[in-house]
């Protein structure tokens, strides 16, 4: 097994666009000549359940699509509660984490049967468990880009901005182009997503300089 294998887990909630984020990252890696195996849970989990995407990225070799427990190198957290959940199973003291701190409330919380963990405690719990955490205010950035729906693309841009993966921003943008830009009518959508990506990219780079 090559030591350059990167295990990445994306944690989120159904409807948040995990699958798109995982597709962008995976296709970027393949375009850069890497081998990828990824697994998404979708289907009914689109409807508000916990959703995880696993990505295994390596310059060569072939891997199964699932990350073994405790072996995540990077967690891309689209929601704090789901991030904490995934961290407890797949994280280890060296896991790096990129986090969108905006909560999405489970049904049990809405109906007041459970309460959402105190956000400050939750975030410090997350920080205590990983070697490096960068928080990205993806909701604000996505709104700036034009729609809250672009939070996942902001986070993908942020991942590119961390430099944790060796792929240049241009490679991601080419993939965004092929997903959103295949015809004229889509060009507005492409611009919006490229902007969202860029905002995330900048935010991650600044977060790194600040820390």
């Amino acid at each position, binding site marked *: 097994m090559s030591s350059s294998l990167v295990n990445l887990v994306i944690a989120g909630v159904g409807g948040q666009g995990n699958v798109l984020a995982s597709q962008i990252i995976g296709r970027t890696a393949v375009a850069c000549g890497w081998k990828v195996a990824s697994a998404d849970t979708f289907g009914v989990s689109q409807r508000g359940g916990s959703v995880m995407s696993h990505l295994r990225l390596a310059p060569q070799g072939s891997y199964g*699509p*699932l990350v073994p427990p405790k072996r995540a190198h990077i967690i891309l957290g689209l929601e704090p509660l789901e991030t904490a959940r995934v961290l*407890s199973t797949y994280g280890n003291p060296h896991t790096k984490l990129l986090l969108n701190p905006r909560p999405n409330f489970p049904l049990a919380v809405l109906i007041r049967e459970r309460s959402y963990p105190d956000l400050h405690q939750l975030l410090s719990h997350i920080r205590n468990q990983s070697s490096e955490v960068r928080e990205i205010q993806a909701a604000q950035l996505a709104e700036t880009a034009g729609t809250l729906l672009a939070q996942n693309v902001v986070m993908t841009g942020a991942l590119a901005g961390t430099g944790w993966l060796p792929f240049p921003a241009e490679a991601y943008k080419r993939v965004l182009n*092929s997903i959103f830009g295949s015809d004229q009518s889509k060009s507005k959508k492409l611009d919006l997503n490229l902007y969202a990506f860029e905002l995330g990219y900048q935010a991650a780079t600044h977060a790194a300089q600040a820390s």
Partner: protein
Amino acid sequence: MNAEVLLDDAGREVLLTGNEAVARGALEAGVNYAASYPGSPTAEILEALAQAQKLYPDRLYTEWSVNEKVAMEGAAAASFAGLRSLTIMKCDGLNVAFDFLTSLGLSGTRGGMVIAVGDDPSAHSSAKEEDSRYLGRLAHLAIWEPADSQQAKEMVKAAFDLSEQMGQPVMLRLTTRVCHAATNATLGPLPKGPAPQAIIAPTDKFITWIEGHKAQEERLLGAVQVANRSNFNRYLGPDQPEILVVACGPSFHYAHEAVEELRAKAEDWGLGSLNGIGILQLATAWPLPEELLLGYLKSARQVIVLEEIEPFVEDYLLGLVARNSSTLGQTVVYGKHSGHVASSNGIGLGELNPELVYRAIAKAIAPGALAPVASTATPSSKPSEAGEQPSFPGRDLAFCAGCPHRASFWALRSALELDGRRGIILGDIGCYSLAKGRTGFNAFQTMHAMGSGAGIASGLGQLWRFGFSQPVVAVVGDSTFYHAVVPALINGRYTQSNFLCIILDNQTTAMTGHQPHPGTGGGAAGDPLPPVPMEQIISGLGLPFTILDPFDIPKATAGIYAALQQPGVQILILRQTCALIATKREIRPEVYVDPDLCRGYNCSCFNFCSRVFACPGNIWDDQRGVASIDQSVCNRCGVCISLCPAGAIKTRTEEDVSHEQLAS
């Protein structure tokens, strides 16, 4: 879909999901006809092929059929005429098509015909985990199972060849971690030139009769020879292994990793080099390559079988070892029967993952040295499997914000409460299946296969003669209505049964990704097919029906209540577009909570909007102690506006917006 599936660029390496790879393999094999009814995990195969139809309309026809049986019949028709055809379904769909399939195997086929079936171990997007290999075997088919996208793509091509060689369909068994996993795949060339001429000669006969059985058994013997030589059965390890791991599907990759990891630890555990372990990917699941297996079994005294759902291969292997005990000596087979291969839910349940496979192999070869392992985890939608810590609330599946089903079940529940006779609600299969849980107010008392709710209703509606006096409501979806509900309605009218059938018409097949169906019109590739309105069908059945909007809760409730008071079979169509489609189509005005009107935490409404109606868009602003709308979630259906007892939820009119702009 990844547009690279369709690229005419042989040799290029791209990232494809297993579903995309199956579609690509079929295209490379020159498929002419593809038909399916959508089901997870295989719904995306036909979606990709439908895109291809747009590029190659002379070579390829695709359709979303009304159900899996009709899909398979159409694909068989193309095969009879000498074309290559593919039919795609999930394991439950194979049950629907199975009556035809057992006949088709006996009658035989001509052009290559491949049946791709998706099994969903752990039932990530299903109601059950069924192992379709048993049905394939019962129909005397050859069954192949790929481990990843590259192999899936190549396997489809070879399966078309095998089907033509055998003169009967070949089945591809796909599991979720192949269908929805993405791995590198190298594109092959796409066929050029015109499609073959479809023709059935006067001498071509495809008739099911008993003589066909003998022919089938003979064809299977041919398939064994193919399996013995097949490159899809990959092997890693020494020529004469001491320990043989037989791995099916994606567990081949898990086994490879697990063995590498065990080797790294072998010295610490005093296990020697572990160089005697061989891993065989058994891709030809049925018929099994006996000669190939016996070759490895000569030296291997321990065999570990890894496969998803039932011990299909394991049982066969146990038999093979028993039949050859005089030459093989003592061989131990580990797997589900021995308890070595077990998920956290138990033996024979759930899908395999790297950790389970690691544990199974470690337990078999080094039981004493097995280090304690962390809790089992797979990426799962089910909170119980997600390695949850007690302080974290789990996440139930829920209807989307603004889903018409939430409003429909609210109205139905209210009407049944008004009625007061303990009416019962019979469920069915679709997004609205979630109504078995809290998001649908725990509405369902039965839920089975597609169309079964209406059939059960027809039966319950006869039980008045035994003193049964509860109103009966069958809830079905629009796609389900066409798929399997109509015969039950005919039965209900014919036998003069008594029940209300509510059709939740959200004008799409929502659950599987919004495919068209007869009621929506429009073909798989977007071809302009006129709809077959359900009203016409229901009128033709001579049944009374009413159409209402579930978002108008008072009217919908009154309509349901009125229908409950009528004898005979009543039909109510609750029509409102699926939220995910509606929000893409129209721009609705923003919905917000007026904090001055909201009664807040400690009031008579008791957090009515979020606590009782429980749309994920209705959240709570804990700092101010009032309700609020999560704008990144709300789909602006406006239902909570009519439900709020204080009138605090409003839509932002253009006037409000300009006021705010002035103020800021």
